[in-house]
């Protein structure tokens, strides 16, 4: 696609999203805010799955660890500053990813999938079975973080609109950041590892280190999403770390088309919208959701972002006749 056209389309999309609060319906404002944070979550996973070739099936762990750090810090220290809490949450989830990655990246393929899953389950059980975070009942957040810098309060997270635009800003920030990372030499090595790790190794790259760095980075960015979730909903539960959530975010990445940040964002939006829509029309919504997933895998390899290309090919094929 022409880069100008694509840029204009992206701008239109951002403007459309920014206009959602005009509807005046707090339900939709909150829903789209959730879509935005899920988009961050999906992009962070796409860095691993789509660009580095590491299929992590335990990404919800980092989302959940960041969400729990918000709840735990707030429970112990009262209302905290956003400027302390956000970096702390990111750091903790990145650290967890570093430790888990150290074990997981020693394995490959199916093993990697299962090992990431199993470690995520372990994190799930830490919050589920031990009194650390209120057990299976979860924890409530009593106050959203304050944004004050000295006596200056730039915005107020208790305000629905401010919260919404904060989520939007974070999404754009993460998008821009990942865009830069992928264009950097570091990003090129990751893509090189995805296409042929042996070649990268023989070129002298220490691929384990690169993969581990990507894994931690993805964990930290997933933590951004988890942070936003905890602040938005004010409630964290072990279910945030469950393998169903890890499956859902993988689904978002695939739905949009791996290896495309815009695809990940689209996947998150479409997935959340689908879930809302199906749950609204039938109580057998899981059957619909499952069928859509199966059909997607069988008939739509490449996801949503591959559709324009496929239509183009189909049209060209038709014209050739």
């Amino acid at each position: 696609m022409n880069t100008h056209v694509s840029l204009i389309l992206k701008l239109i999309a951002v403007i459309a999203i920014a206009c959602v609060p005009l509807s005046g319906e707090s339900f939709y404002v909150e829903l789209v805010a959730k879509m935005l944070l899920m988009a961050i979550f999906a992009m962070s996973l796409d860095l691993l799955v789509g660009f580095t070739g590491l299929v992590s099936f335990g990404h919800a762990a980092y989302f959940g660890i960041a969400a729990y750090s918000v709840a735990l810090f707030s429970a112990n220290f009262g209302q905290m500053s956003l400027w302390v809490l956000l970096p702390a949450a990111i750091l903790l989830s990145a650290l967890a990813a570093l430790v888990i990655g150290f074990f997981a990246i020693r394995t490959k393929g199916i093993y990697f999938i299962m090992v990431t899953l199993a470690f995520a389950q372990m994190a799930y059980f830490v919050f589920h079975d031990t009194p650390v975070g209120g057990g299976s009942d979860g924890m409530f957040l009593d106050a959203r973080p304050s944004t004050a810098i000295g006596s200056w309060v730039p915005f107020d997270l208790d305000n629905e609109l401010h919260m919404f635009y904060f989520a939007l800003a974070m999404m754009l920030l993460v998008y821009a950041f990942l865009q830069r990372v992928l264009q950097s030499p570091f990003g090129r090595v990751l893509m090189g590892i995805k296409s042929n790790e042996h070649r990268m190794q023989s070129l002298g790259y220490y691929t384990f280190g690169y993969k581990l760095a990507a894994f931690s980075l993805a964990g930290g960015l997933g933590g951004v999403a988890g942070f936003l979730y905890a602040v938005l909903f004010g409630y964290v539960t072990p279910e945030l770390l469950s393998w169903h959530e890890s499956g859902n975010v993988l689904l978002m990445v695939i739905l949009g088309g791996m290896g495309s940040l815009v695809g990940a964002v689209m996947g998150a939006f479409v997935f959340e919208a689908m879930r809302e829509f199906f749950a609204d029309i039938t109580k057998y919504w899981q059957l619909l959701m499952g069928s859509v997933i199966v059909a997607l895998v069988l008939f739509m390899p490449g996801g949503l972002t591959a559709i324009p290309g496929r239509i183009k090919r189909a049209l060209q094929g038709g014209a050739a006749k």
Partner: protein
Amino acid sequence: MDFASFLIQTLNSLQYGLLLFLVASGLTLVFGIMGIINLAHGSFYMIGAYIAFVLTSATGSLMLAIALGIPLALAIGAFLEWALFSHLYKRDHLEQVLLTFGLILIFEQLRSILIGDDVHGVAIPAFLDMSIQLTEVMSYPVYRLAISAVCIVLAIALYYVIQRTRLGMMIRAGNDDRTMVEALGININMMYRVVFALGVALAALAGMLAAPISSVYPNMGSSVLIISFVVVVIGGIGSVWGALVAALIVGFADTFGKVLLPEISGMIVYLVMAVVLLWRPEGILKKA
């Protein structure tokens, strides 16, 4: 813990471990030979348990239900392989994860629509419905011992099939080198269908056997799935013997963990897994 309790806990560990082996063996076969990551494996366990419930209610005998249920499970497995999984061999693991993730949702909802969401008990066959007195207050259900016996027999049968039969030879060859098997003129598609059906049947059989002691209920496959994953990872993907050893390790760790370290009992098996991975990233017995 007194000595008698220790012995009984050992028995509990063995029984739990052997049942886990039965579920995990099917998973590891499908993983190892076909390279398919199957999240719906827990659903097959659930389906087996519900088959046992429905057929036992209809025929009045669990034995008959299992006799009818095994061919049914094989047929379901062969059908799914033909309709869905055969399209996935050349695809990415990721798409297998997704497809089977979708299948879980479908199976759970179908179960809800067809059978409902109630908890159901399944009667133990009369000739096994008794207990052996072990201590003055504790006795041990014969049915649990019978399950262990069946699991041991199946483990031996699997060993025989894989080591001694033509199918086993093909499986071992396929496990090692797909192109080699094709070069030998073996119909690999047929072999895959058989292996997949076998995997489904093993999970379903575990569900059928467990139904009387676990009762049947919604989402029963979910917890079994994750623990089976751990067993397969510890044992080494594709290794049936690894799965046996790993299942027993998990059985012991879980049982004794509950009594001795109740605070962290949920995590113990995962800690064991972490240690094993540090020591041997490919599992204890990668490809025996």
